[in-house]
């Protein structure tokens, strides 16, 4: 199992979420972060003149999923989150040792399955 951490633009959240639902990625959580990368920050207007903010608001989406879903998910995010200008964000993939679903006590792979998600569909097929 892997964890995907995608740092995207704030206003791309809905697009990415919808795109993920479409390919069957349902479980996720979202955090508001402020980030800095090649993007140099923004100028804001004050009473007179401007000042620079170098940590910009971003959205971080965390998704834990099976290894074989990683590629498709990364591609989906990349596509939905892409604008082509600086500040589009970055995706990280980490190893995961274990998963436990609190309500059911399910562990590992099966804890990650949802009625309509990729894995379940595959199993049915």
């Amino acid at each position, binding site marked *: 199992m892997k964890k995907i951490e995608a740092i995207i633009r704030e206003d791309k959240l809905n697009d990415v979420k919808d795109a993920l639902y479409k390919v069957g990625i349902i479980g996720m959580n979202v955090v508001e972060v402020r980030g800095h990368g090649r993007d140099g920050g923004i100028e*804001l*207007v*004050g*009473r*007179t*003149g*401007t*000042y*620079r*903010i*170098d940590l910009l608001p971003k959205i971080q989406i965390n998704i834990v999923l099976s290894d074989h879903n990683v590629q498709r998910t990364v591609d989906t995010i990349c596509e939905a989150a892409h604008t082509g200008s600086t500040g589009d964000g970055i995706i990280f993939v980490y190893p995961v040792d274990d998963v436990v679903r609190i309500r059911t006590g399910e562990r590992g792979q099966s804890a990650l399955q949802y009625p309509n998600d990729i894995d379940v569909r595959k199993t049915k097929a």
Partner: protein
Amino acid sequence: MQNEINTGDTAWILVSTALVLLMTPALAFFYGGMVRKKNILSTLNLSFVMMALISVQWVLFGYSIAFGPSIGGLLGGPSYLGFNGVGTAPNADYAATIPHMAFAAYQMMFAVITPALISGAFVERVRFKAYVIFSLLWATLVYDPVAHWVWGVGGILRNMGALDFAGGAVVHITAGFSALAFALAIRKRRGYGNGGVFEPHNIPFTVLGAGLLWAGWFGFNGGSALGANGLAVTALVNTNSAAAAAGLVWMLLSWRDNKPSVLGIVTGAVVGLVAITPAAGFVTPLSALIIGALASPVSYYAIKLRQKVGLDESLDVMACHGTGGTFGALATGIFATKMVNEAGADGLLYGNPAQFVTQLLSVVIVAVFSFVVTFALAKLLNRTIGIAVSEREEEVGLDISEHGERAYA
């Protein structure tokens, strides 16, 4: 008999008192929106606590210093200590148609807000204890005497013929120049002019404050007619006109430099309100539009200058109130006309350049006096108890370090 109480006049002064009182919490939010989250309670309180502290000071002795029978035009005598002798009959010297105590109460609200204005100079680092002592001394040594000079019967500037309808000098010039002096005496905020970012944490609070200030100012200037009469109406219309014009012009200035800033528009409106304060009862609405329109660039570039110089006069009290008040006082000397107010005078434009000189002189006297006394007070307090918190306390934020509180959970 002329000294009977007029209920309409009294109603208007009671309301104006409430409106001006409300300006202090309004100012708290106007300032509070511009500081960082960790200092919001501290900043709100620097204004709010004046309602408590100066109200008590005023009743006990402040009013007497300001409006007691004059001692050589410099100070009021002790007749009104503890509001003794300040009864419900009119005091014809000041307002012949309302209870004397109504006049005293109305004036109290001006005394309350003025030191609160100064607090914008040193937010986010001032030691609360020092501020409490400072503002008590300042009210007593600066505000009360200057109020006497300008408005007291027999006061030296009043005798000179200086016009100050609602406190351009008494309130805004004293506050502005004192802010400048204090900012020179206190250390900068950590990181100021050195990479630190001081982003306003809640601009809607500032807009809220500005909205309440605008409405409150109708009491501030309109109430200064001391009755519900034509003069009050003129003052109110002028107040609104100057605020409107100044807000618009500031918008255009920021638009030209960048984008039309909301913080700029509300700041402009406040600057317009400041500038019209001394003139409100002496000029026509069209003159008020002009005064407002010109006040904005004056303050706008004053802020830019202040920033360039690198002085951490944090919320620009000098640029907005000091400069705005000075500009307004001088503009009064230009635009005043007896057609609006017979008790006033004609200004430069109406053939009386002498009035301009009088205004200039009064501005200089008040500005220098405020600056010098404040600088001395601040330096003295800094030597003794210290006027700034430690850098570590500043880092943590004044809400926690000075008040042990957190604003938002």
